[in-house]
């Protein structure tokens, strides 16, 4: 009897540990691949990997976050205007699923703010009016949920930097936001190695341009 109990108990623990290890290992490997991705095909591969993980780990928002992130990156890279919306629809699907799992996660709202500008580039004249306010609302929400999330400040800075001066953008207006972002990046410690930790380098690259 005791043996049987031990058996059942240890099987349960081992399975859980193996799965946990499996998740972490799979995520770590995929993140490593994402870091080295350069082409649409690379990002498509990692997006697929994260999507596969997300379908098994239905309680984790991180796989969905990275699947969505990869699709957004693809949308910025692909030149084919007609395809961009399809990528972004997919990215939004992942993001919506993630928000159901973690509705108060600041990083997800930052990611939303990363997605909207890509929609705008497809048709600035008609879409700017619709998505700019949405993007600002997403950043505000991201900051409210976690004021230490540096990506919110970076995204605000880079958007202002790319907005013509006539519309309240430009280098001068963007500078303090880049600086806040830098401060926050310097202090930022991700919750775990799997949590979002991108943007520091690009923030500094963009600052050079000012």
């Amino acid at each position, binding site marked *: 009897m005791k*043996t049987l109990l*031990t*058996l059942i108990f*240890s*099987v349960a623990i*081992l399975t859980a540990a*193996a799965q946990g290890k*499996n998740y972490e290992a*799979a995520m770590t490997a995929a993140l490593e691949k994402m870091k080295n991705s350069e082409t649409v*095909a690379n990002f*498509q*591969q990692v*997006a*697929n*990997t994260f*999507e*596969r*993980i997300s*379908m*098994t780990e239905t309680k984790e928002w991180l796989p969905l976050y990275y699947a969505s992130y990869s699709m957004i990156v693809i949308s910025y890279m692909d030149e084919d*205007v*007609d*395809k961009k*919306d*399809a*990528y972004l629809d*997919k990215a939004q699907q992942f993001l919506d699923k993630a928000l159901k799992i973690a509705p108060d996660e600041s990083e997800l709202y930052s990611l939303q703010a990363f997605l909207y500008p890509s929609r705008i580039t497809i*048709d*600035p*004249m*008609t*879409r700017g*009016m*619709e998505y*700019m*306010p*949405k993007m*600002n*609302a997403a950043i505000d929400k991201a900051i409210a949920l976690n004021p230490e999330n540096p990506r919110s400040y970076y995204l605000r800075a880079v958007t202002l930097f790319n907005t*013509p*001066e*006539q*519309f*309240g953008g430009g280098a001068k207006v963007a500078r303090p936001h880049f600086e806040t972002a830098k401060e926050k990046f310097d202090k930022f410690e991700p919750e775990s190695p799997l949590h979002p930790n991108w943007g520091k380098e690009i923030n500094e690259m963009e600052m050079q341009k000012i």
Partner: protein
Amino acid sequence: MKTLLILLFQFLIMFAHAQVRISGVVQSESGSPVTGVNIFIQGTYDGTTSDTLGVFSFTTDATGDQTLIASCVGFETYGQALNISGDISDITIILIEEISELDEVIINAGTFEASDKKKSVVLKPLDVALTAGANGDIFGAFGKLPGSQTVGEEGRLFVRGGESYETKTFMDGMLVNTPYYSKMPDLPTRGRFSPILFNGSVFSTGGYSAEYGQALSSIVALNTVALEPETKSSISFLSVGLQGSHAKRWENTSLSVSGEYLNTTLSNKLFKQNVDWLQEPVIIGSTMLFRHKTSETGMIKSFATFNYDTSSLLYENIEQSAFQKISMDNNNLYSNTTYNEMLNDEWMIQTGFAFNIDRENMDIDSDEIATARNSSQLKLTLSNYSIKDVTTTFGAEALIYKYDQDINMNGDFNLSFNNNLFAAFAESEWKVTKSFALKAGLRTEYNSLINELNAVPRLSAAVKTGKSSQLSAAYGKFFQNPGDDYLKFTDELAPETSSHSILTWQYKKDSRTLRIEAYNKNYSDLVKFDEEFSAEPGNYNNTGSGYSRGIDVFWRDQKEFGKDDYWISYSWIDSKRNYRDYPMKVTPHYVSKHNLSVVYKRYFTKINSFISGSYTFASGRPYDNPNTPEFMAGKTKTYNDVSFGFTHLFYLFNTQTVAHVIVNNALGFNNVFGYNYAQTPDNNGVYQSQAIVPGQKRLIVFLLSFQL
């Protein structure tokens, strides 16, 4: 020790799984490889991405009955049962292309749609707002599309040989009974609604859905914006007045209010008027929009607008060889509230209530005419999606209309009538295949005033003729009650009827669209009379008839943002009718055989400016010269107009600012819309005439708008 052994044993079990390899290839229906496909065993991490040749290969620990999934953007997700006991190779997965909106067959005979959301459309809402020569008027912009006639002294839409009353306007599915401001003789009016209220619109020049009735020729269906994106205010200074708006946004609710005061006194001083104004036109208006999102799919929209317009002028009435003082004022209140929601996966409800109160006072010298038009409408529509590829819509509506006119003209007269209209419709659209769709509908109406019950069919279909082209056809029968000016005298009339047959070929590839449409429209039961404004009921009958046939061509090349964008629209029409007091079948005075519009737009990124220009041409219009024996045999000279719009975006006093200038008839063409003739000949036996010309030769309007 025993325990340790067990543990060891378990480790062995866990890691002794034999890994198997699954491989194969992914192809599209046409046999070409699909790259980037996510292929995996459901419920595991095991999977891979197909390479550029569509080839995939991965290993898995899973055994037994499993499901292999293949998913890719642009394709339907594929699932296959797989019994894994060893390596599996040579799996061929055929992915079915998702019908993207661009490639989908769309029933579009007779229809021009403007939308931000749909890519299949040829117009954007901004096209409507920023078309040069349209003066920011929705109807003005649709007037630059094929099928509409240039009728400069009206300002209303005249579609395919039809009169302006044959076009009906709907907002969020609800009827707008009085969409135009009041109108002075020989001077154009314009629409009451600002184009920025709408994020989508449909202009149908024929063959429209069974949802719409009481329109012989055309419908304009406008969809108001959803939630306001953010809290904001704006104030605009125009050379013709002031406008202001404020919008407030909450989480799921928004409210916006706007007001305007328009006065053309200053503008009329700057641009010489062909009109002898006694009081310059003044418009005071206000609008309210309330939106509340009830769920992911549910929305309550409430809209209300009130406006007042007034003007007075000295009119040279050559028919009666007299100068008349004509004063007009109009109060108009329109409101609608609609509610839409998906009740479940299969049913969607759309319901609404609308009312319109319109009071118009027209004084001609000492004669007074006061007209009240009140209407209210209740409508319910249910759409069902339970059968795959089939959408079925059922609807019913009630429209209560009261007309009351007091005339003080050598005595007091009252002309009034009430009509209650009840209608029901059902329509079903079936996407038989990816490249073939059918739509059939039936509409039935009952009119209390003229005791008439009728039912009419609406049919349409579309078939893809290639990857980028399609053929679409529509047939429909349409009823419309005789106008107020007849029904107020007699209820012994039947509805006027028309039938439309339309064939459309559309080619759309990348930025280019070409549309060619041929149509044939027959009119019958048109109202005829012997003498205008005779109160004798026996004077009116339904013996009129007519036809319109023609070809409409539309070409648009819309390059990406910041590049050239232009469209050319051309209409050829042959239309004749015998109605009103016409002695014979002739081409009516509002029809020109050839209409051409060229509209150009471009955003210049470097100077943050939007420039638009348009050229409009219409061949001569018929008019009746009583000095000649033939009826309606005169022909005006051709109509030409070149208009410009310039919009500059900049920052002024730390505020986002828009400067907007429109120039109408920049080249100063002397256009003539027709001629009015004296009723009686002068001493030499000649009927004197007077040309109907625009209110001013050139018009420039300035606008400076601040976003606060």
